[in-house]
Protein backbone atom coordinates (compact mmCIF):
# COMPACT_ATOMS: atom_id res chain seq x y z
CA UNK A 1 0.00 0.00 0.00
CA UNK A 2 1.37 3.34 -1.00
CA UNK A 3 0.92 6.02 1.60
CA UNK A 4 1.09 9.73 0.87
CA UNK A 5 3.67 10.95 3.32
CA UNK A 6 3.73 14.51 1.96
CA UNK A 7 0.73 15.69 4.07
CA UNK A 8 -1.06 19.02 3.66
CA UNK A 9 1.14 22.07 3.85
CA UNK A 10 -0.26 25.60 4.26
CA UNK A 11 2.14 28.28 3.23
CA UNK A 12 2.49 31.46 5.24
CA UNK A 13 1.08 33.49 2.33
CA UNK A 14 -2.17 31.46 2.39
CA UNK A 15 -2.51 31.73 6.16
CA UNK A 16 -1.95 35.47 6.00
CA UNK A 17 -4.52 35.89 3.22
CA UNK A 18 -7.17 33.83 5.08
CA UNK A 19 -6.77 35.76 8.35
CA UNK A 20 -6.81 39.21 6.74
CA UNK A 21 -9.62 38.23 4.35
CA UNK A 22 -11.75 37.03 7.25
CA UNK A 23 -11.08 40.30 9.05
CA UNK A 24 -12.12 42.34 5.99
CA UNK A 25 -15.30 40.27 5.59
CA UNK A 26 -16.14 40.71 9.28
CA UNK A 27 -15.63 44.49 9.00
CA UNK A 28 -17.82 44.65 5.89
CA UNK A 29 -20.69 42.65 7.47
CA UNK A 30 -20.45 44.65 10.71
CA UNK A 31 -20.53 47.92 8.74
CA UNK A 32 -23.56 46.87 6.68
CA UNK A 33 -25.51 45.82 9.82
CA UNK A 34 -24.64 49.12 11.51
CA UNK A 35 -25.74 51.14 8.47
CA UNK A 36 -29.02 49.22 8.22
CA UNK A 37 -29.73 49.80 11.93
CA UNK A 38 -28.94 53.50 11.64
CA UNK A 39 -31.18 53.74 8.58
CA UNK A 40 -34.03 52.10 10.50
CA UNK A 41 -33.48 54.44 13.43
CA UNK A 42 -33.52 57.49 11.13
CA UNK A 43 -36.80 56.28 9.58
CA UNK A 44 -38.32 55.87 13.06
CA UNK A 45 -37.21 59.33 14.21
CA UNK A 46 -38.49 60.84 10.95
CA UNK A 47 -41.85 59.13 11.45
CA UNK A 48 -42.00 60.54 14.99
CA UNK A 49 -41.19 64.06 13.83
CA UNK A 50 -43.72 63.80 11.00
CA UNK A 51 -46.33 62.66 13.48
CA UNK A 52 -45.55 65.74 15.56
CA UNK A 53 -46.01 68.02 12.54
CA UNK A 54 -49.28 66.26 11.71
CA UNK A 55 -50.53 66.89 15.25
CA UNK A 56 -49.73 70.64 15.13
CA UNK A 57 -53.06 71.72 13.61
CA UNK A 58 -54.90 69.53 16.11
CA UNK A 59 -53.16 71.16 19.06
CA UNK A 60 -53.35 74.80 18.09
CA UNK A 61 -56.51 74.58 16.02
CA UNK A 62 -59.71 76.33 16.84
CA UNK A 63 -61.93 73.57 15.53
CA UNK A 64 -63.37 71.04 17.93
CA UNK A 65 -63.38 67.29 17.31
CA UNK A 66 -61.19 67.07 14.26
CA UNK A 67 -60.23 63.63 13.02
CA UNK A 68 -57.12 62.60 11.17
CA UNK A 69 -56.43 59.14 9.80
CA UNK A 70 -52.75 58.37 10.01
CA UNK A 71 -51.68 55.72 7.50
CA UNK A 72 -48.26 54.17 7.94
CA UNK A 73 -46.56 52.19 5.17
CA UNK A 74 -45.60 49.34 7.53
CA UNK A 75 -46.71 47.94 10.90
CA UNK A 76 -45.85 50.62 13.45
CA UNK A 77 -45.66 50.91 17.20
CA UNK A 78 -46.13 54.37 18.70
CA UNK A 79 -44.82 54.62 22.25
CA UNK A 80 -46.61 57.33 24.25
CA UNK A 81 -44.13 58.58 26.84
CA UNK A 82 -44.10 61.70 28.97
CA UNK A 83 -42.35 63.56 31.73
CA UNK A 84 -43.91 65.98 34.15
CA UNK A 85 -40.84 68.05 35.01
CA UNK A 86 -40.54 71.78 34.41
CA UNK A 87 -43.29 74.29 33.72
CA UNK A 88 -45.13 72.18 31.16
CA UNK A 89 -43.68 68.68 31.24
CA UNK A 90 -43.06 66.94 27.94
CA UNK A 91 -44.94 64.74 25.53
CA UNK A 92 -42.47 62.19 24.18
CA UNK A 93 -43.11 60.02 21.13
CA UNK A 94 -41.07 57.04 20.03
CA UNK A 95 -41.90 55.25 16.81
CA UNK A 96 -40.77 51.74 16.01
CA UNK A 97 -41.45 50.15 12.63
CA UNK A 98 -41.40 46.55 11.51
CA UNK A 99 -38.67 45.84 8.95
CA UNK A 100 -37.89 42.33 7.73
CA UNK A 101 -40.12 40.96 10.51
CA UNK A 102 -38.17 42.76 13.24
CA UNK A 103 -39.14 45.89 15.16
CA UNK A 104 -36.60 48.67 14.72
CA UNK A 105 -34.94 49.69 17.95
CA UNK A 106 -34.71 53.37 18.74
CA UNK A 107 -33.65 55.35 21.76
CA UNK A 108 -34.17 58.71 20.08
CA UNK A 109 -37.13 60.59 21.53
CA UNK A 110 -39.18 63.20 19.71
CA UNK A 111 -40.54 65.53 22.37
CA UNK A 112 -43.04 68.40 22.50
CA UNK A 113 -44.05 70.70 25.34
CA UNK A 114 -47.36 71.78 23.80
CA UNK A 115 -48.98 68.43 22.99
CA UNK A 116 -51.12 66.14 25.12
CA UNK A 117 -51.67 62.71 23.59
CA UNK A 118 -54.02 60.35 25.37
CA UNK A 119 -53.58 56.73 24.36
CA UNK A 120 -52.33 53.41 25.61
CA UNK A 121 -48.60 53.32 26.41
CA UNK A 122 -47.95 51.41 23.18
CA UNK A 123 -50.32 51.75 20.23
CA UNK A 124 -49.72 49.22 17.48
CA UNK A 125 -51.10 49.02 13.97
CA UNK A 126 -50.78 50.24 10.41
CA UNK A 127 -53.57 52.83 10.52
CA UNK A 128 -54.26 55.13 13.42
CA UNK A 129 -57.23 57.32 14.22
CA UNK A 130 -56.35 60.67 15.77
CA UNK A 131 -58.93 63.16 16.97
CA UNK A 132 -58.88 66.10 19.31
CA UNK A 133 -61.16 67.98 21.66
CA UNK A 134 -60.63 71.27 23.48
CA UNK A 135 -60.08 71.06 27.22
CA UNK A 136 -61.56 74.12 28.95
CA UNK A 137 -60.90 74.74 32.63
CA UNK A 138 -62.68 77.28 32.57
CA UNK A 139 -60.73 78.92 29.70
CA UNK A 140 -59.30 76.87 26.87
CA UNK A 141 -56.16 75.16 28.14
CA UNK A 142 -55.29 72.89 25.22
CA UNK A 143 -56.66 70.63 22.56
CA UNK A 144 -56.20 67.15 23.93
CA UNK A 145 -55.38 64.53 21.31
CA UNK A 146 -56.66 60.96 21.32
CA UNK A 147 -54.69 58.28 19.47
CA UNK A 148 -56.28 54.90 18.74
CA UNK A 149 -55.21 52.03 16.53
CA UNK A 150 -57.76 51.41 13.76
CA UNK A 151 -57.54 47.72 14.60
CA UNK A 152 -59.10 48.37 18.01
CA UNK A 153 -62.89 48.68 18.13
CA UNK A 154 -64.79 50.47 20.85
CA UNK A 155 -68.51 50.05 21.38
CA UNK A 156 -70.25 52.69 23.49
CA UNK A 157 -73.30 51.27 25.28
CA UNK A 158 -75.96 53.51 26.85
CA UNK A 159 -73.93 56.65 26.10
CA UNK A 160 -75.61 60.03 26.81
CA UNK A 161 -77.22 61.58 23.75
CA UNK A 162 -74.58 64.27 23.21
CA UNK A 163 -71.76 61.72 23.43
CA UNK A 164 -73.58 59.46 20.99
CA UNK A 165 -74.05 62.36 18.54
CA UNK A 166 -70.42 63.34 18.89
CA UNK A 167 -69.28 59.78 18.13
CA UNK A 168 -71.62 59.55 15.15
CA UNK A 169 -70.21 62.86 13.86
CA UNK A 170 -66.71 61.41 14.01
CA UNK A 171 -67.96 58.78 11.56
CA UNK A 172 -65.34 56.15 12.36
CA UNK A 173 -65.82 52.44 11.78
CA UNK A 174 -64.09 51.48 15.00
CA UNK A 175 -66.12 53.79 17.27
CA UNK A 176 -69.58 52.23 17.42
CA UNK A 177 -72.68 53.20 19.35
CA UNK A 178 -74.85 50.28 18.18
CA UNK A 179 -74.45 46.79 16.68
CA UNK A 180 -71.34 46.02 18.70
CA UNK A 181 -68.88 43.59 17.15
CA UNK A 182 -67.84 40.56 19.19
CA UNK A 183 -64.22 41.72 19.40
CA UNK A 184 -65.17 45.28 20.43
CA UNK A 185 -64.10 46.78 23.73
CA UNK A 186 -67.40 47.45 25.52
CA UNK A 187 -67.62 50.92 27.07
CA UNK A 188 -70.69 50.99 29.36
CA UNK A 189 -72.15 54.26 30.58
CA UNK A 190 -73.88 54.38 33.97
CA UNK A 191 -74.05 50.57 33.96
CA UNK A 192 -77.44 49.15 34.85
CA UNK A 193 -78.76 45.62 34.97
CA UNK A 194 -79.32 43.62 31.79
CA UNK A 195 -77.52 41.68 29.10
CA UNK A 196 -76.07 44.89 27.60
CA UNK A 197 -74.12 45.63 30.74
CA UNK A 198 -72.50 42.23 31.07
CA UNK A 199 -68.82 41.94 30.30
CA UNK A 200 -68.10 45.67 30.23
CA UNK A 201 -64.43 46.32 29.57
CA UNK A 202 -64.69 49.96 30.57
CA UNK A 203 -67.33 51.46 32.87
CA UNK A 204 -68.13 55.18 32.86
CA UNK A 205 -70.05 56.73 35.75
CA UNK A 206 -71.09 60.19 34.54
CA UNK A 207 -72.58 61.08 37.94
CA UNK A 208 -69.47 60.36 40.00
CA UNK A 209 -67.32 61.33 37.03
CA UNK A 210 -65.14 58.27 37.06
CA UNK A 211 -63.98 55.69 34.56
CA UNK A 212 -63.13 52.18 35.64
CA UNK A 213 -60.76 50.25 33.41
CA UNK A 214 -58.74 47.12 34.21
CA UNK A 215 -59.72 47.44 37.90
CA UNK A 216 -58.30 50.94 38.05
CA UNK A 217 -60.29 54.13 38.56
CA UNK A 218 -59.64 57.42 36.78
CA UNK A 219 -61.55 60.60 37.63
CA UNK A 220 -62.52 63.19 35.06
CA UNK A 221 -63.98 66.66 34.63
CA UNK A 222 -65.39 67.72 31.25
CA UNK A 223 -66.06 65.38 28.31
CA UNK A 224 -62.56 65.92 26.97
CA UNK A 225 -61.05 64.14 29.97
CA UNK A 226 -63.78 61.46 29.91
CA UNK A 227 -62.69 60.38 26.42
CA UNK A 228 -59.09 60.67 27.59
CA UNK A 229 -59.73 58.23 30.45
CA UNK A 230 -61.54 55.79 28.12
CA UNK A 231 -58.74 55.65 25.55
CA UNK A 232 -55.70 55.85 27.88
CA UNK A 233 -53.73 53.76 30.29
CA UNK A 234 -53.98 55.03 33.84
CA UNK A 235 -50.31 56.04 33.98
CA UNK A 236 -50.59 58.06 30.75
CA UNK A 237 -53.87 59.63 31.87
CA UNK A 238 -52.66 60.71 35.31
CA UNK A 239 -49.43 62.20 33.95
CA UNK A 240 -51.14 64.09 31.14
CA UNK A 241 -53.72 65.46 33.59
CA UNK A 242 -50.84 66.72 35.71
CA UNK A 243 -49.29 68.35 32.63
CA UNK A 244 -52.62 69.96 31.74
CA UNK A 245 -52.84 71.41 35.24
CA UNK A 246 -49.32 72.80 34.85
CA UNK A 247 -50.39 74.59 31.66
CA UNK A 248 -53.55 75.83 33.38
CA UNK A 249 -51.34 77.32 36.07
CA UNK A 250 -49.12 79.07 33.50
CA UNK A 251 -52.19 80.42 31.70
CA UNK A 252 -53.54 81.70 35.01
CA UNK A 253 -50.28 83.63 35.43
CA UNK A 254 -50.84 85.18 31.98
CA UNK A 255 -54.43 86.13 32.85
CA UNK A 256 -53.19 87.58 36.15
CA UNK A 257 -50.71 89.81 34.27
CA UNK A 258 -53.41 90.69 31.74
CA UNK A 259 -55.73 91.76 34.57
CA UNK A 260 -53.02 94.09 35.88
CA UNK A 261 -52.51 95.52 32.39
CA UNK A 262 -56.26 96.07 31.98
CA UNK A 263 -56.57 97.72 35.38
CA UNK A 264 -54.04 100.29 34.14
CA UNK A 265 -56.51 100.98 31.29
CA UNK A 266 -59.29 101.52 33.82
CA UNK A 267 -60.84 98.04 33.92
CA UNK A 268 -61.86 96.87 37.40
CA UNK A 269 -60.22 93.68 38.74
CA UNK A 270 -63.37 91.55 38.90
CA UNK A 271 -61.90 88.05 38.57
CA UNK A 272 -60.01 86.47 41.47
CA UNK A 273 -57.59 83.86 40.14
CA UNK A 274 -55.59 83.13 43.27
CA UNK A 275 -57.86 80.40 44.67
CA UNK A 276 -57.92 78.51 41.38
CA UNK A 277 -54.13 78.80 41.09
CA UNK A 278 -53.65 77.31 44.55
CA UNK A 279 -56.04 74.44 43.86
CA UNK A 280 -54.57 73.71 40.42
CA UNK A 281 -51.06 73.65 41.88
CA UNK A 282 -52.18 71.03 44.38
CA UNK A 283 -53.62 68.59 41.83
CA UNK A 284 -51.48 65.48 42.17
CA UNK A 285 -53.88 62.86 40.79
CA UNK A 286 -57.14 62.94 38.86
CA UNK A 287 -58.95 62.45 42.18
CA UNK A 288 -58.07 66.07 43.07
CA UNK A 289 -59.70 67.38 39.89
CA UNK A 290 -63.08 67.82 41.54
CA UNK A 291 -61.76 70.59 43.85
CA UNK A 292 -60.14 72.37 40.93
CA UNK A 293 -63.37 72.08 38.91
CA UNK A 294 -65.35 73.79 41.69
CA UNK A 295 -62.85 76.65 41.83
CA UNK A 296 -62.90 76.86 38.00
CA UNK A 297 -66.71 77.17 38.03
CA UNK A 298 -66.48 80.11 40.48
CA UNK A 299 -63.87 81.87 38.34
CA UNK A 300 -65.94 81.30 35.19
CA UNK A 301 -68.96 82.92 36.82
CA UNK A 302 -66.85 85.95 37.85
CA UNK A 303 -65.44 86.30 34.34
CA UNK A 304 -68.91 86.09 32.75
CA UNK A 305 -70.09 89.08 34.80
CA UNK A 306 -66.83 91.09 34.58
CA UNK A 307 -66.80 94.47 32.82
CA UNK A 308 -63.60 93.52 30.99
CA UNK A 309 -63.57 89.79 30.36
CA UNK A 310 -60.22 88.09 30.70
CA UNK A 311 -61.06 85.27 28.22
Amino acid at each position, binding site marked *: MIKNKKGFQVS*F*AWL*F*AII*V*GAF*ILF*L*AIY*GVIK*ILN*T*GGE*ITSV*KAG*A*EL*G*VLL*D*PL*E*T*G*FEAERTVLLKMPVETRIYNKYNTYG*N*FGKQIIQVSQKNWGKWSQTNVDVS*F*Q*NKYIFSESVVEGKNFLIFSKPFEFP*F*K*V*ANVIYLISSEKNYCFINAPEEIEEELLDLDQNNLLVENCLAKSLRVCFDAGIGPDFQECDISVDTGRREVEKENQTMFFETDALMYAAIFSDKSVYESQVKRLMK*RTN*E*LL*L*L*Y*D*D*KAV*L*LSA*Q*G*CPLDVGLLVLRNVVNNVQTSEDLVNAANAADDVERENDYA*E*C*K*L*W
Partner: protein
Amino acid sequence: MQQMMWKEKMTMLNVNYGKMIKKNKKAQMKIQQMAFMLIAVTLFFVLVGLFFVVILFSGTKESAALLKEEGALLLVSKLANSPEFSCGNAFGTTKINCIDGDKAMALKDNINTYSNFWGVQGIEIKNIYPKNQEICTFENYPDCGEITLIPGTGTGVSNFVALCKKENIEGQIYDRCELARIVVYYGETD
Protein backbone atom coordinates in the same frame (compact mmCIF):
# COMPACT_ATOMS: atom_id res chain seq x y z
CA MET B 1 42.42 13.56 -1.13
CA GLN B 2 40.76 14.63 2.06
CA GLN B 3 41.32 18.25 1.13
CA MET B 4 39.64 17.66 -2.25
CA MET B 5 36.55 16.10 -0.63
CA TRP B 6 36.28 18.93 1.87
CA LYS B 7 36.42 21.50 -0.93
CA GLU B 8 33.69 19.66 -2.89
CA LYS B 9 31.44 19.54 0.20
CA MET B 10 31.91 23.24 0.81
CA THR B 11 31.04 24.06 -2.80
CA MET B 12 27.79 22.03 -2.55
CA LEU B 13 26.83 23.75 0.72
CA ASN B 14 27.43 27.16 -0.81
CA VAL B 15 25.24 26.28 -3.79
CA ASN B 16 22.36 25.09 -1.48
CA TYR B 17 22.64 28.18 0.71
CA GLY B 18 22.48 30.45 -2.33
CA LYS B 19 19.35 28.65 -3.54
CA MET B 20 17.68 29.12 -0.14
CA ILE B 21 18.41 32.84 -0.10
CA LYS B 22 16.93 33.13 -3.60
CA LYS B 23 13.80 31.20 -2.52
CA ASN B 24 13.37 33.30 0.68
CA LYS B 25 13.61 36.55 -1.25
CA LYS B 26 10.91 35.35 -3.66
CA ALA B 27 8.59 34.43 -0.76
CA GLN B 28 9.13 37.79 0.92
CA MET B 29 8.23 39.50 -2.32
CA LYS B 30 5.05 37.42 -2.58
CA ILE B 31 4.02 38.29 0.99
CA GLN B 32 4.68 41.97 0.36
CA GLN B 33 2.65 41.82 -2.82
CA MET B 34 -0.23 40.16 -1.01
CA ALA B 35 -0.11 42.68 1.87
CA PHE B 36 -0.26 45.59 -0.55
CA MET B 37 -3.06 43.89 -2.47
CA LEU B 38 -5.06 43.32 0.71
CA ILE B 39 -4.59 46.92 1.82
CA ALA B 40 -5.74 48.07 -1.61
CA VAL B 41 -8.80 45.78 -1.48
CA THR B 42 -9.70 47.02 2.05
CA LEU B 43 -9.36 50.64 0.99
CA PHE B 44 -11.50 49.96 -2.07
CA PHE B 45 -14.31 48.44 0.02
CA VAL B 46 -14.09 51.25 2.59
CA LEU B 47 -14.41 53.85 -0.15
CA VAL B 48 -17.33 52.02 -1.78
CA GLY B 49 -19.00 51.75 1.68
CA LEU B 50 -18.49 55.45 2.36
CA PHE B 51 -19.97 56.29 -1.02
CA PHE B 52 -23.12 54.30 -0.19
CA VAL B 53 -23.37 55.84 3.31
CA VAL B 54 -23.16 59.34 1.83
CA ILE B 55 -25.90 58.49 -0.71
CA LEU B 56 -28.06 56.82 1.95
CA PHE B 57 -27.93 59.69 4.43
CA SER B 58 -27.67 62.66 2.06
CA GLY B 59 -31.44 63.26 2.28
CA THR B 60 -31.61 63.30 6.09
CA LYS B 61 -30.58 66.93 6.54
CA GLU B 62 -32.94 68.07 3.79
CA SER B 63 -35.78 66.05 5.35
CA ALA B 64 -35.15 67.67 8.73
CA ALA B 65 -35.17 71.16 7.18
CA LEU B 66 -38.33 70.35 5.24
CA LEU B 67 -40.05 69.05 8.37
CA LYS B 68 -39.11 72.22 10.25
CA GLU B 69 -40.50 74.40 7.47
CA GLU B 70 -43.68 72.33 7.25
CA GLY B 71 -44.10 72.50 11.03
CA ALA B 72 -43.60 76.29 11.08
CA LEU B 73 -46.12 76.79 8.25
CA LEU B 74 -48.75 74.71 10.02
CA LEU B 75 -47.98 76.37 13.34
CA VAL B 76 -48.23 79.94 12.06
CA SER B 77 -51.59 79.23 10.47
CA LYS B 78 -53.00 78.05 13.79
CA LEU B 79 -50.91 79.80 16.46
CA ALA B 80 -53.30 82.75 16.82
CA ASN B 81 -55.96 80.30 18.04
CA SER B 82 -53.81 78.73 20.75
CA PRO B 83 -54.83 79.60 24.34
CA GLU B 84 -51.77 81.83 24.93
CA PHE B 85 -52.77 84.17 22.06
CA SER B 86 -56.46 83.74 21.26
CA CYS B 87 -59.08 86.41 21.95
CA GLY B 88 -61.64 83.89 23.22
CA ASN B 89 -64.78 85.79 24.19
CA ALA B 90 -62.86 88.76 25.63
CA PHE B 91 -63.85 90.99 22.70
CA GLY B 92 -67.51 90.06 22.30
CA THR B 93 -68.10 86.86 20.39
CA THR B 94 -65.56 84.13 19.66
CA LYS B 95 -63.25 85.15 16.83
CA ILE B 96 -61.00 83.02 14.64
CA ASN B 97 -57.39 84.11 13.98
CA CYS B 98 -57.70 86.86 16.56
CA ILE B 99 -54.80 87.69 18.88
CA ASP B 100 -55.51 89.24 22.25
CA GLY B 101 -52.89 92.02 22.40
CA ASP B 102 -53.19 92.38 26.18
CA LYS B 103 -52.57 88.66 26.63
CA ALA B 104 -49.65 88.84 24.17
CA MET B 105 -48.08 91.59 26.31
CA ALA B 106 -48.56 89.43 29.40
CA LEU B 107 -46.93 86.58 27.46
CA LYS B 108 -44.01 88.90 26.60
CA ASP B 109 -43.55 89.40 30.33
CA ASN B 110 -43.44 85.61 30.92
CA ILE B 111 -41.64 84.62 27.72
CA ASN B 112 -38.75 82.84 29.46
CA THR B 113 -41.19 80.13 30.54
CA TYR B 114 -42.36 79.69 26.94
CA SER B 115 -38.99 79.85 25.15
CA ASN B 116 -39.10 76.18 24.01
CA PHE B 117 -42.85 75.71 24.14
CA TRP B 118 -43.61 75.97 20.41
CA GLY B 119 -40.19 74.76 19.25
CA VAL B 120 -39.55 77.81 17.07
CA GLN B 121 -36.75 80.38 16.95
CA GLY B 122 -38.85 83.50 17.10
CA ILE B 123 -42.38 84.93 17.28
CA GLU B 124 -43.32 88.49 16.41
CA ILE B 125 -46.64 90.25 15.91
CA LYS B 126 -46.53 93.25 13.55
CA ASN B 127 -49.27 95.77 12.83
CA ILE B 128 -50.12 96.20 9.17
CA TYR B 129 -52.98 98.66 9.30
CA PRO B 130 -52.88 101.26 10.70
CA LYS B 131 -49.11 101.10 10.13
CA ASN B 132 -47.13 101.48 13.34
CA GLN B 133 -43.57 100.18 13.64
CA GLU B 134 -42.97 101.24 17.21
CA ILE B 135 -41.91 98.26 19.30
CA CYS B 136 -44.25 97.64 22.24
CA THR B 137 -43.02 98.00 25.80
CA PHE B 138 -45.07 98.23 29.00
CA GLU B 139 -44.46 101.99 28.93
CA ASN B 140 -45.89 102.72 25.45
CA TYR B 141 -48.58 99.97 25.25
CA PRO B 142 -51.22 100.12 23.68
CA ASP B 143 -49.91 102.94 21.43
CA CYS B 144 -47.42 100.78 19.57
CA GLY B 145 -47.36 98.38 16.63
CA GLU B 146 -44.86 95.53 17.11
CA ILE B 147 -44.92 92.94 19.87
CA THR B 148 -41.65 91.00 19.83
CA LEU B 149 -42.18 87.89 21.93
CA ILE B 150 -39.07 85.95 20.93
CA PRO B 151 -36.69 88.02 18.77
CA GLY B 152 -36.65 86.30 15.38
CA THR B 153 -33.62 84.71 13.76
CA GLY B 154 -33.56 82.49 10.69
CA THR B 155 -36.32 82.08 8.15
CA GLY B 156 -39.76 83.47 8.89
CA VAL B 157 -43.26 82.51 7.80
CA SER B 158 -46.28 84.67 8.52
CA ASN B 159 -50.06 84.73 8.66
CA PHE B 160 -52.62 87.53 8.76
CA VAL B 161 -54.49 87.99 12.04
CA ALA B 162 -56.66 90.48 13.87
CA LEU B 163 -54.87 92.12 16.81
CA CYS B 164 -57.36 93.26 19.45
CA LYS B 165 -56.79 95.24 22.63
CA LYS B 166 -58.78 97.17 25.21
CA GLU B 167 -58.34 100.93 25.07
CA ASN B 168 -59.43 103.71 27.36
CA ILE B 169 -60.75 106.76 25.52
CA GLU B 170 -61.95 109.53 27.80
CA GLY B 171 -62.80 107.11 30.62
CA GLN B 172 -64.63 104.65 28.39
CA ILE B 173 -63.22 101.18 27.65
CA TYR B 174 -63.34 100.26 23.95
CA ASP B 175 -62.25 97.21 21.97
CA ARG B 176 -59.75 98.14 19.25
CA CYS B 177 -58.98 95.56 16.58
CA GLU B 178 -56.35 96.11 13.88
CA LEU B 179 -54.96 94.11 10.98
CA ALA B 180 -51.65 92.45 11.85
CA ARG B 181 -49.27 89.71 10.86
CA ILE B 182 -47.87 87.00 13.11
CA VAL B 183 -44.39 85.90 12.07
CA VAL B 184 -42.83 82.59 13.17
CA TYR B 185 -39.09 82.07 12.66
CA TYR B 186 -38.01 78.48 12.41
CA GLY B 187 -34.27 78.86 11.74
CA GLU B 188 -31.82 76.61 9.98
CA THR B 189 -31.02 72.99 10.80
CA ASP B 190 -27.64 72.54 12.49
